[in-house]
């Protein structure tokens, strides 16, 4: 029998993997993809819980998370392109003009 905890465990693993990716990768786009992975693990949690609790709130929430993800993708990629134009790189280690 698959319980909600199974899904939540998978989601937790994916969330931790996304975190790991954010912390270790250098390419801003890949980092953004890792963030998407984290958001998706949250979506899975929401839908699993929604199904378990038998109400719609979680699923509707996921719908909005998707909208937000889309909006973030649009703006984020635009920012990356702008940065790339000036710096010729999208390596996050090159975002180093301001520090200390």
């Amino acid at each position, binding site marked *: 029998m698959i319980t909600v905890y199974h899904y939540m465990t998978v989601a937790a693993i994916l969330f931790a993997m996304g*975190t790991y990716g954010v*912390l270790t990768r250098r390419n801003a786009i890949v*980092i953004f993809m890792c963030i998407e992975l984290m958001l998706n693990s949250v979506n899975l949690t929401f839908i699993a819980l929604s199904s378990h609790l038998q109400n719609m709130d979680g699923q509707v929430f996921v719908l909005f998370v998707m909208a937000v993800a889309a909006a973030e993708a649009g703006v984020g990629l635009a920012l990356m392109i702008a940065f790339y134009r000036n710096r010729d790189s999208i390596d996050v280690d090159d*975002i*180093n003009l*301001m*520090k*200390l």
Partner: protein
Amino acid sequence: MYDKLWLIPFFPLLGAIINGLLGKRFIKNEKVIGAIGTGMLFLSFLVSCKYFIQLLGDSVKSHQNVIASWMSVGKLQVDWGFLLDPLSALMIMVVTGVGTLIHLYSIGYMHGEEGFYRYFSYLNLFVFSMLMLVLGNNALVMFVGWEGVGLCSYLLIGYYFEKKSAGDAAKKAFVMNRVGDFGFLLGLFTLFWALGSHGVWTINFVEITENAHLLSGDMILGASVTTVATLCFFLGATGKSAQLPLFTWLPDAMEGPTPVSALIHAATMVTAGVYMIGRMNILFAMSPTTMFVVALVGALTAIFAATIGFAQNDIKRVLAYSTVSQLGFMFVAMGVGAFTAGIFHLMTHAFFKACLFLGSGSVIHAMHHALHHAHLDDDAQDMRNMGGLRKKMPITWATFGISCLAISGLPFFSGFFSKDEILWWAFASTRGNKVIWVIVVVAAFMTAFYMFRCLYMTFYGEQKTNPKAKDHVHESPWVITLPLVVLAGLATVGGLIGIPHAIDIAHVGNKLNAFLAPVFHHSQELYKIEAHGSASTEIILMVFSVAIALAGIGFATVMYMKDPSLPGKFTAKFPTLHRVVFNKWYVDEIYDTLFVNSTKKLGIFCWKGFDVKVVDGIVNGIAKLVGALSSVLRYTQSGLFTNYALTMVLGTVVMLAIFILN
């Protein structure tokens, strides 16, 4: 009635605003600017006089005038309110009176300076803040004034901002004052919380006085609440009033214009700490421990600053250390429970020290003028460049001399009465202590000595000014000498309002004591603070202290008047003394080697070693420590995304982990 009290601080504020906003572009004329600044303060003085007289004839001695509500927190109600009682009435008289004279003096002294309008604007703002401090009916209004005077002092010390030393001095003064302010706030917190735990949420002085008895027996951190709170307040006072260990800013503050030194760093602002203790006397009276600390710190400061005064050649620095020392006397008075005597000395000190500073300013002004005329860049403040100015500047000399007599405590000058009352209380009070009395007596001796040294070096002997400039030294104009004369007059007769009972032959009574009784008697009676001793003892002590003062003057005369080319007039006046000086060369040398040099060395050691190294070291050390921490911590800010994200994750993980472990 008393509903126009707000006019007193209002006028100086108005003056500050007018001069500050319009001075540069629209008024421009120095005379008008000076007239506005002085006039506003004079108006304020007139209002003060009116209320002072009204209060004298009133049977109720405490009046509050609330203008508007400021803040309310729960049951705590804080108002923009004023409190007029004998203590604050006396203070406003001193502040506005001496303030007006110094404003008048400034017109002459600051003539032709760049930023004349700025100076008057700041000075008026200072008086406004000082009046807020004095008149405030609760601790927060007092704190507004407390901060305001600090700010104005900061701005005025740094008035000659082109000089780096001026900027540094200003910064030092501000930072040291803030250390003190931290103590003040901490004390306020403690008091607020302690009274609050009895259900009395208040910071109004009248209510604090009424409810102080609730605190007896309360403990915090193993000490009684009153002790902790008053010690914190006292820390605040040490910062503002330049007591050990936070006194080093005051001598540096002499970088400001001389009238500023006279008004802020002698007559008014630095006495705020004394006033504050007077305001909260009931709390201090409740804690013998704090009282003892206050007296001890005061006594140590008095003697310590006096020794340093020996080794200084800058005329303003001598006066600055003298101020620190005299403030020590006031704190001794507060510490032994002689609240009236402390306030009395505050007042007389305001007269004679303002006069001394203004006199020195007059000398510096003349010297500066002469040196400038001769295109020399000798130090206009170095006493070694002066000497023999008595004939050139007779009025300045006379007033300076009178003030020296007053500060030394010669009979029937104002300083005599106030200092003597302090000594008597230190000796005989229930909170007094013979050791403190001894220290203070020695300090009094030294005071007489170095003040007369200063007087002699400046006005007597041969003029050591560069010959080129010698003849250009002239007496200052009337706007400068008039305040000197008035202040010298006050320094002479000002003491008569507080004639001690023992020598009150004419039975005029101690007017000041009676006047201030409504403020202080309650706590003195409640906590059994009194000076007890026979009149004969008092008279013996009085004679002794006069002898001490004379001895100090004598020593100074012996050492600094030995020059053979002394004007014949002086020789004729003190023939014996002169003969002693003239004939006893060896005595002089012995003194020089044994006493003067060693004391000088001690003085220099204290100044260089303790003042500069230890005190500054501690202050700078803390600053450096924080600075070092800062430069380490800033490297966490590596600019790298990865590190930032990692910190966030770790922060979250730690928070989660703490919840797991719980």
